[in-house]
């Protein structure tokens, strides 16, 4: 029987970690991620949850420790935010390079200075090229489901890459909402114990990460790209498998709302997508044929799917909560990727793309603003 509970986003992530039977957790506290690790450490100390918690001395060490644990053959988890993510970023590349399928939860937060602890996604964008699978949650329910899904896909031997589950700081981590908690048996069936193909074992000595000749390294790097693209089909497959088990669809690469006949499409990620759905309703009331598209998985980027869905639309509004200063357009990274995805379309099919920056520095993004922006343009 599914249990219903009112949980904060942090609690939901912690619940997802416990349901995934993670064995080693290492983390360093940083607002707004603290509640995630506090919940986990508390359950471990109370003896209700069998895992090892390492209170490391820095984020760099947190990522290092989970890489070590993952390569020893234990499912591992860490969580961070903002400056902490930037401090550990060296090890993010190493996690991908060592092919350690761990999961990192990221509570998005603005990068300083000036000091600001509210949600912005520029921290996440620093991980774009690391080789991590990047999932983006829109609500507390999804935060829980995504952790389980991330392990499922990351540990698949056709992928075997680390994954990142991103949720916006405070907007999700510190707000409470109803969450359906799946049964442990169902999760166990969906996510079997982690069995790496090879691991650190004195009986079977092997060296991980010693030098690689350049020719081979070239191939190796290209292989990363292939693996992440492989993950697209696996994410879809995992979503179907899960639906069969729980009777509830927990999402795959993208999510759409009222998109079939829409001329105007609103595109975003995370919590802004929830506001977009309300904005779509309001716009429809006023006679504008609007629809919305949410990018749920940022890496691998669902290029073909987006191209297919956006072909022939009139206007596409891409709302981005991150900024790449001095880059193309208005500097929104999501808009850049969408533009690149649509480049192959014919001139008659190409929609007009509006690159809109919203909610930088954690500024609120209510649906009314989105409606105003859309109406101001068309």
């Amino acid at each position, binding site marked *: 029987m599914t249990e219903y509970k009112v949980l904060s986003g942090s609690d939901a992530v912690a619940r997802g970690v416990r349901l995934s039977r993670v*064995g*080693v957790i*290492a983390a360093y506290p940083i607002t707004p991620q603290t509640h995630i690790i506090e919940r986990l450490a508390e359950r471990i100390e109370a003896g209700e949850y*069998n*895992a*090892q918690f*390492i*209170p*490391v*001395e*820095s984020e*760099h*060490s*947190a*990522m*290092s*420790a*989970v*890489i*070590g*644990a*993952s*390569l*020893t*053959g*234990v499912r*591992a988890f860490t969580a961070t935010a903002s400056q902490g993510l930037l401090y550990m970023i*060296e*090890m993010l590349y*190493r996690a991908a390079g*060592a092919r350690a399928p761990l999961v990192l939860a990221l509570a998005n937060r603005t990068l300083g200075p000036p000091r600001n602890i509210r949600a912005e996604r520029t921290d996440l964008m620093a991980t774009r090229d690391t080789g991590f699978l990047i999932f983006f949650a829109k609500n507390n329910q999804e935060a829980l489901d995504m952790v389980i899904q991330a392990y499922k896909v990351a540990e698949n031997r056709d992928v075997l890459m680390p994954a990142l589950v991103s949720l916006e700081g405070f907007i999700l981590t510190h707000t409470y909402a109803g969450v359906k908690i799946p049964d442990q048996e169902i999760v166990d069936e969906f996510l079997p114990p982690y069995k790496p193909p090879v691991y*650190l*074992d*004195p009986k*079977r*000595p*092997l*060296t*991980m*990460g*010693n*030098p*690689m*000749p350049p020719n*081979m390294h070239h191939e190796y790097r290209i292989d990363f790209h292939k693996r992440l693209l492989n993950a697209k089909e696996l994410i879809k497959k995992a979503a179907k498998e899960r639906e069969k088990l729980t009777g509830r669809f927990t999402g795959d690469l993208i999510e759409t709302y009222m998109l079939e006949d829409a001329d105007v499409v609103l595109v975003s990620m995370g919590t802004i997508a929830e506001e977009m759905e309300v904005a779509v309703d309001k716009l429809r009331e006023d006679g504008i044929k609007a629809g919305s598209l949410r990018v749920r998985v940022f890496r691998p980027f669902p290029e073909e799917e987006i191209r297919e869905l956006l072909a022939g639309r009139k206007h596409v509004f891409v709302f981005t909560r991150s900024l790449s200063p001095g880059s193309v357009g208005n500097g929104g990274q999501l808009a850049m990727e969408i533009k690149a995805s649509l480049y192959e379309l014919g001139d008659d099919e190409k929609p007009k793309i509006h690159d809109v920056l919203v909610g930088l520095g954690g500024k609120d993004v209510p649906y009314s603003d989105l409606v105003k922006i859309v109406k101001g343009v068309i």
Partner: protein
Amino acid sequence: MVEFDIKPIRVTNEELIENRFSNILKGNHACAGCGGTLAMRIISKAFGRNVIYVIPASCSSVRQGFIPKSAMACPVFNTAFASAAAVASGIAAALKYQGRDDVVPVVRAGDGGTVDIGLATLSGAAERQTNMIYVCYDNEEYGNTGYQRSGATPPGARTTTTPIKGKREFKKPVPVLMADHGVPYVATASIGYVPDMYKKAYRARRQIKNGFRYIHVHFTCPPGRGTDPRDCVGLAKLAVDTGLRPLYEVINGKRYLNGISKKQYLEPDKYMKPVEEYLKYQRRYRGYTEEDVELLNRYRDRYRDLIKRHVKYTNPELEEI
């Protein structure tokens, strides 16, 4: 603090010869006369098979050779500079979770990866009393990148980043620092005294069964020192004999001086060789001045004082263990 069954160990040459186990296989990429390879070979004999090595960026990560081969006959994870002790913490936690109590993670880091960039991680792992062994292979410079000054470079040494006047500052006393963390075992060793080094590695692995164990091994790097490769062992011996690199162990907070260092402590005038004897063989001390010698003597005295602070806890007779 946990009490361990510490028994005196006597290491014979026969034992060292008969123990043919080695983690580092021949035909590797190390330089001729590499003291680090010698130290690693001897220490791996004492550690045995059930270890997982963590190696941060250093000469050791290069000498393993290219994938799909490796010169290391044990499980190894090559990691980034500042992360070694943290990776080992993760491995230790995973081993505990899996119930593999017989295996222990071992960090094999250079002096740069230990006393400079890796110090925070090392201190963190020691403070958490992680069940692991940390071995610092100290050649007193950044050997792999071309012999630059490190925090472990002794005063007076000319390196590629202190090429004219030489380093003016003292060496970071990391073994003393680690002992102050309250870990069960800290030792300094030298390739000049191989049986002593073997004994310490053996004790860290077999006698002290859990907790954080730290071994600081001094060795010489022929290209970095500018010495003949054949002098690699003799020079390391001189460093101990001149009192610059005293050999000691700290077991559960009690300090024991070993061999010649004990004699030097009791009768410095009789057993301490003048530092010039050590300097004259090395190109990094070429054209050393009176000032350099005075600096080294001051450094030696300061190090002696640091040790004294701990020796008072132990038996005044300074028993041999």
